């Protein structure tokens, strides 16, 4: 990928995060308490490495970093987005491997969740640049899936409290989500195939019509 594109995507994401932090002194304070820390996110398929540098309550996003790393995450784009953007803290069944300080990860997840940021646009832009629109679309759908899901969790008011008090999700929930994503992907592929077929028959029909119109 052209580094100009990834640099642009990371720069805009970074600006969004820091501006959201400036409007949320509580979260910024929590971040500042973490001191100087670095998280490395290795996305495999598509391959993108991002370093999240935290210092003095500010976030920097980079593609290259040569200093010490406190925590490293490895997983597919879907699995990582799932882990980072849902309110779930559990790594079990998430498909993400973690090396180093999981404490840092949990803290960051907590802060990220509170921040008022629309992650969808910059993330799908970043992924779209690397992997093309299909994966970006998938992530986009994944994100809105979580949004709706979380909204509905809140609506079930009786359960809402206990849901929130739990530190780890029920494994079924993650399974559930993974299945939903698989389903979505299959549906998407089927849809694409149908569209292809339709296009094909449309073209055939047009050709036939053209030939029929041609004077003998």
């Amino acid at each position, binding site marked *: 990928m*052209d*580094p*100009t594109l990834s*640099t642009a995507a990371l720069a805009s994401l970074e600006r969004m995060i820091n501006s959201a932090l400036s409007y949320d002194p509580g979260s910024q304070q929590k971040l500042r308490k973490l001191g100087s820390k670095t998280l490395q996110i290795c996305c495999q398929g598509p391959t993108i490495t991002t370093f999240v540098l935290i210092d003095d309550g500010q976030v920097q996003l980079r*593609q290259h*970093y*040569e*200093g010490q790393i406190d925590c490293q995450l490895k997983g597919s784009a879907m699995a990582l987005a799932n882990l980072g953007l849902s309110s779930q803290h559990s790594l079990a069944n998430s498909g993400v491997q973690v090396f180093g300080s999981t404490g840092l990860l949990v803290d960051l997840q907590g802060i990220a969740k509170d921040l008022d940021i629309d992650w969808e646009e910059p993330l799908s832009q970043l992924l779209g640049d690397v992997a093309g629109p299909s994966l970006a679309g998938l992530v986009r759908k994944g994100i809105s899936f979580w949004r709706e899901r979380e909204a509905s969790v809140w609506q079930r008011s009786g359960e809402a409290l206990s849901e929130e008090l739990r530190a780890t999700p029920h494994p079924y929930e993650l399974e559930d989500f993974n299945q939903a994503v698989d389903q979505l992907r299959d549906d998407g592929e089927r849809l694409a195939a149908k569209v292809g077929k339709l296009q094909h028959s449309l073209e055939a029909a047009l050709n036939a019509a053209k030939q029929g119109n041609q004077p003998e």
Partner: protein
Amino acid sequence: MSEHKQEQETTHFGYETVDKGEKAGRVADVFHSVAAKYDLMNDLMSGGIHRLWKRYTIELSGVRAGQKVLDIAGGTGDLTLKFSRLVGPEGQVVLADINDSMLKVGRDKLIDKGVAGNVQVSQADAQFLPFADNTFDCITIAFGLRNVTDKDLALRSMLRVLKPGGRLLVLEFSKPGNPLLEKAYDAYSFAFLPTMGRLITNDADSYRYLAESIRMHPDQNTLKDMMSDAGFAACEYHNMTGGIVALHKGIKP
């Protein structure tokens, strides 16, 4: 023999061939003339993309707190500004340029942004750097090398003042890999840039020089070889924006 001599003593000023002694003066005129509006033009010409190219350069520099950095041909100090934050109070950044008009704009900008203490401003020629051997952990030259009369001399001079293990980063216009992009870029730089230069700085010639000097600059692999020949190790480059710009990196062994 005399013909050979003549060949050695002329060089390119954009598309013109000029005496070697003359090029530096002509380049100086260009930058004296554009200094005041340089930052504005940079943003307009590149649609702000030069900021991304520079940001990536900073990432690849690996510069850390406490290090010493030379930003040669640093002009109005974009890279210096970022480095001064990275090296912190224990480190040092030298903003150097041959042209005092550019340095003056740079110095004012740094003061304006509240940078002080760890930045030193120095008027210097990249070919004859006035620093002791093995001084810097990192040297950057951004959009500067193509203006230098003797690039080999400059590369060797930079190698000398780098510490062993230190790295040189050359950010420079280069050759787009895609012929279509090259065409579009040519049209942009030869028609659009001088016109914009005339509108904003009242100086089309300077921006025509810019376009021509970009064209005459060595392509990716030539520059990489030049760096190896000068003594740099592990030379590599990263194309950006389809190769319109390339970032070359070399390490002093």
